[in-house]
């Protein structure tokens, strides 16, 4: 076996644990190969896009509440977008599209996969770095140009893509239909490049988790975050290429005169939808599985109790990931797809509620008979559970094909997706950021301001998005520039105004978070290695950990959730704490 070890250290330029030497500014902060720095880079990038996406949402909400009224300060927009501050329909379509795109591809996905994947995988499995640090760096530096390309599309002639984040062909396949030519092409190109970034990351994560776990870190001792990120990486690896292929076909339709999706010449619009959703549904689980992991970690920590049903939790993650591949058609119930296929997809979609149920009940089981400390991360995690339940249950309405006839493409869907993505993913991200902030920056965020942010977000989030269910049931369509055009929607306008006010407040509370985030980097209380008294390996080393993470590769003796185990003085025990003599094993 020693020969295998030699082969491992083959002469690829930078190998984990190799670079313990001083490096210059550029190598430390910009072209860093250190997974922790890359995580922070992703964090900066994706928070900026989160804020941008939020700003676009604000513009949309203004238009929806006060259609035709000039936006305060909207004079800064060129006449092609909002003459005199009045948002044009084509600009509104770009706003919706780019809001969805930013949020999904440039905010939530990099936050969950890029930030937490990079930060946690080596730290929690006890490795010095990723398997391929250079590739990791490349992954970030591909995401950046992709981001700039996407941003640039606002400033080209015709404006940014306006066919929705789902880019349904043929609307997206020929500029004649929207008046957007280059913008749509930049959108396609940007996502294609971003795809390389994601795949590079996924290859790295999978290899690292499989091969670089510390001695004793067996599969079933892994923290659930790692399980979730590992399975997510597999989904990324297999789903993104499908999108990449579809993007290319759409791009050639736009530019080279092919006709994959252009029905006038024999192309098939539904082929785009099948390809997109064959990618798209696994994608939405990419956006939730890491959140499941983070929340499990933090709920157990807050409740000071082992995670309930660890093994079932792992199985549920795997089951969701697999089932996620066979439900894509539920986005296409009204598309003219073969009705029999619709029935098939309804059954698979219904079944996917089962592993989600396992997750929810095990979280509840974790709290049961715990000793709950309401830390800020815990608050966000508990909010996640309560909001994900709502989002998941609204999914059941849509899964039922006859009911979906009425609510498809209405604000009911918008409510669902924000409940799972904001109430779900984003709250988990807030939990994760506040929880691991000390590991990233060595300091704690200010708890008081964090609590204020939490309470404000929770209340105004619900006020903003819950009424959307009702709007959807009344038949308010999505991607609707001016709801007052329709008689039956005009009378609902007060609700749109209400939602918009709630969004104003919601965003104001995000500013608190933003300021707290920045200021705490310098002013925050010193965290020490283990502020949350947690078990997993990253808490056994200083905050922030040095280059190479561990002085010596740790040896793991137990699972990640041994909270309140009998025989120990404290109510936690680090995974690499050697077994004590007296401890009841």
């Amino acid at each position, binding site marked *: 076996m020693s020969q295998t070890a030699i082969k491992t250290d083959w002469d690829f330029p930078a190998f984990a644990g190799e670079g313990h030497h001083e490096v210059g500014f550029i190598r430390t902060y910009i072209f860093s190969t250190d997974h922790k720095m890359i995580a922070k880079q992703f964090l900066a990038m994706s928070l900026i896009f989160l804020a941008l996406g939020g700003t676009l949402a604000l513009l949309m909400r203004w238009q929806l509440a006060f259609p035709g009224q000039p936006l305060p300060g909207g004079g800064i927009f060129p006449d092609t977008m909002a003459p005199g501050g009045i948002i044009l329909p084509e600009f509104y379509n770009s706003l919706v599209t780019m809001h969805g795109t930013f949020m999904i591809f440039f905010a939530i996905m990099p936050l969950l996969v890029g930030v937490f994947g990079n930060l946690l995988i080596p730290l929690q499995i006890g490795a010095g770095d990723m398997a391929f640090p250079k590739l990791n760096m490349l992954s970030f530096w591909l995401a950046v140009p992709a981001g700039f390309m996407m941003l640039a599309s606002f400033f080209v002639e015709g404006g940014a893509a306006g066919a929705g984040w789902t880019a349904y062909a043929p609307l997206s396949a020929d500029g004649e239909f929207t008046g957007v030519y280059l913008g749509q092409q930049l959108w396609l190109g940007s996502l294609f490049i971003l795809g390389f970034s994601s795949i590079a990351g996924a290859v790295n994560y999978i290899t690292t988790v499989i091969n670089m776990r510390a001695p004793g870190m067996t599969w079933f001792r892994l923290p659930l975050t790692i399980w979730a990120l590992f399975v997510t990486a597999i989904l990324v690896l297999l789903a993104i290429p499908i999108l990449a292929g579809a993007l290319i076909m759409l791009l050639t339709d736009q530019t080279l005169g092919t006709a994959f999706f252009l029905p006038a010449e024999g*192309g098939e619009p539904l*082929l785009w939808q099948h390809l997109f959703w064959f990618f798209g549904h696994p994608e939405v689980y990419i956006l939730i599985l890491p959140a499941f992991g983070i929340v499990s970690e933090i709920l157990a920590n807050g409740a000071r109790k082992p995670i309930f049903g660890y093994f079932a939790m792992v199985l549920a993650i795997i089951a969701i990931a697999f089932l996620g591949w066979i439900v894509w058609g539920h986005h296409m119930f009204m598309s003219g797809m073969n009705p029999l296929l619709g029935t098939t997809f309804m059954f698979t979609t219904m079944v996917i509620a089962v592993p989600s149920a396992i997750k929810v009940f095990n979280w509840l089981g974790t709290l049961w008979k715990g000793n709950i400390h309401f830390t800020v991360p815990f608050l966000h995690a508990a909010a996640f559970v309560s909001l994900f339940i709502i989002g998941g249950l609204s999914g059941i309405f849509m899964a039922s094909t006859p009911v979906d006839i009425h609510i498809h493409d209405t604000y009911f869907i918008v409510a669902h997706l924000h409940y799972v993505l904001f109430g779900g993913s984003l709250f988990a991200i807030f939990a994760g950021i506040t929880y691991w902030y000390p590991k990233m920056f060595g300091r704690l965020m200010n708890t008081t301001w964090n609590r204020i942010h939490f309470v404000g977000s929770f209340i105004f989030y619900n006020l903003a998005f819950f009424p959307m269910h009702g709007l959807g049931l009344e038949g308010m369509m999505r991607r609707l520039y001016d709801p007052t055009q329709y008689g039956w929607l005009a009378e609902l306008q007060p609700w749109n105004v209400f939602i918009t006010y709630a969004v104003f407040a919601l965003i104001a509370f995000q500013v608190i978070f933003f300021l707290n985030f920045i200021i705490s980097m310098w002013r925050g209380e010193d965290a020490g290695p283990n502020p949350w008294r947690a078990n997993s390996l990253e808490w056994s080393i200083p905050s922030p950990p040095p280059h190479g993470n561990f002085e010596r590769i740790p040896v793991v003796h137990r699972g990640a959730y041994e909270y309140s185990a009998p025989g120990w003085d404290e109510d936690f025990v680090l995974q690499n704490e050697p077994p004590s003599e007296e401890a009841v094993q």
Partner: protein
Amino acid sequence: MTTATATRPEPGFGVYNLKLGMWVFLLSEVMFFTSLIGAYIILRFAHPEQFAAPGEVLNVPLTAVNTFILICSSVTMVKAFAAVEKDDQRGLQLWLVATIILGSTFVGVQIYEYIHLFADGFVPNAAEYSAGGGPLYGSTFYLMTGFHGLHVSIGVLALIWVLIRSMRGAYSPERLGGVEIMGLYWHFVDLVWIVLFTIVYLI
């Protein structure tokens, strides 16, 4: 505990990182070609009239020879690997050169074929060539073979890089990861072609 055992993955897969990484990457390639091939299969099912029978438009004998060349390049690649396993540096370089030549020949023949098809009016958005008319045949054909050709071309470049490194003596029986993953990629591209050749040219 010595470093050697400490860096050894505890349960792991017993496959070194680079090789595992390449395998994982190839899985994503499988899905990429799935989306292209899937699109072809579906469009062909939906619009059979836009597609020609085997041999009507495409030059099957030429491509059969070309396929054979690619298969040969796979065997030379695997020979290169076998050589480095025995520390046969000369053999390694010779077989690599052979692979590069065969690989570039494949790309060359494909370009030649493209040029002829273009000259005959079979272009990605061609309407004239197929029975019912329409651009689907050309679109799918160039998409699939083009992306495959791109993979072969990248492979040839990578092979040249491996050759240069081998001349600097970078590989030995203990350090052959670079050759092995090169081989994995190359054989995978060959494997994809075997499938592509069948469904594009023969069915």
